[in-house]
């Protein structure tokens, strides 16, 4: 990220000891935004998700996580698959391990967590905050 901000800010500086040409001024934000998008998508394409992490499956059923407490190995990256078996969309979220991902009704999503330090990490359904569960890393 560092590099592209510098690279983008430079031309404006070079081209404008006093003032920036109007065309450059008008285009630069679009270029910056485009590069922001390209960075996200480019990284995604360049580094496809690896598949050798231990996998944990969680279902959302009648506003409950099943299972609601999951033991995982500390110090290792974990792949979590969340399946929403309910009729309403959910958002799988955790403040403790910084994740939020919408799980549409009837769909499943995958996300990666960790490596976690030993301890208990709460997650919840942001659309139904009483629906809670824990990852326990040992």
């Amino acid at each position: 990220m560092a590099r592209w901000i510098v690279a983008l800010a430079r031309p404006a500086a070079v081209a404008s000891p006093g003032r920036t040409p109007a065309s450059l001024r008008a285009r630069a934000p679009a270029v910056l935004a485009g590069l922001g998008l390209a960075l996200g998508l480019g990284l995604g394409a360049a580094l496809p998700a690896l598949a050798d992490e231990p996998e944990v499956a969680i279902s959302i059923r009648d506003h409950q996580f099943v299972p609601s407490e999951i033991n995982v190995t500390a110090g290792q990256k974990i792949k979590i698959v969340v399946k929403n078996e309910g009729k309403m969309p959910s958002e799988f979220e955790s403040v403790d391990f910084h994740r939020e991902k919408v799980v549409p009704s009837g769909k499943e999503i995958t996300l990666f967590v960790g490596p976690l330090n030993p301890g208990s990490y709460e997650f919840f359904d942001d659309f139904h905050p009483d629906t809670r569960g824990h990852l326990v890393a040992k």
Partner: protein
Amino acid sequence: MLATLIIVFREVLEASLVVGIVMAASRGVPHRSLWIFGGCAAGVLGALVVAGFATEIASLVQGIGQELFNAAILFAAVAMLGWHNIWMSRHGRDLAADATRLGKDVVAGTRPLHALALVCGVALLREGSEVVLFLYGVAVSGGNSAASMMLGGVLGVAAGLAVGAAIYFGLMAIPMRYLFSVTSWLILLLAAGMASQGAAFLSAADVLPSLGDSVWDTSGLLSERSLLGQVLHVLIGYTARPAGIQLVFFAATLIILGTLMRALRIQHPPRRTLPPSALPSKAV
């Protein structure tokens, strides 16, 4: 109803704070409301589209489409906020002086309003799509509680907007000659916080390593789910248990943007046609 109110309030809060800060940062610029609320309106429309395609977006790029989408729009917002701040560090002093005189036309149209409009648009796009999905779920679940939950949703939006309005009017109380320094700092921190959030999304997608899942833990001191915790999360990127990669992105954004703002600042004496004492201290 209360539960719905709180859920919607949380989602609206972030976008609302962003718009409040951006409105204050563009004080005195002609047509700013048109640009910024236009950006907001586009964001809401976009949120409807994103919510409609939530399933498709989630399944893109081997199931990490949602993370990449969120990260991409967060980094686009970081870039726009950065652009605004660099622009302001080049022109801010003239602006503060001009705004008190007749010089508004000098800055009209040169201000990166499109950048700020885009920031508001993507903030609403991201948070709004979640509100839409949630309320859609409430609506289709039907039952006699749906109406009261919808009312909760409307009140939640109103409460979120009220916080945004509060920060806006709070900032507007700052004298004009300090206002843009304050908003530049706020925007710098806002950008750093967004970069940190973007990094968390890329780490969730396994595109970036987490570099330690919680470098420290202040959740006992101030929960990120509390109102204060959440406001600070938006404003200064407060994270109770930050991952290493988030700290790296936060610090890198602060350092890079801060350095660029300094390096690209134009050094020239302030243009004064009036003695300083004749300048009104309070602007329009």
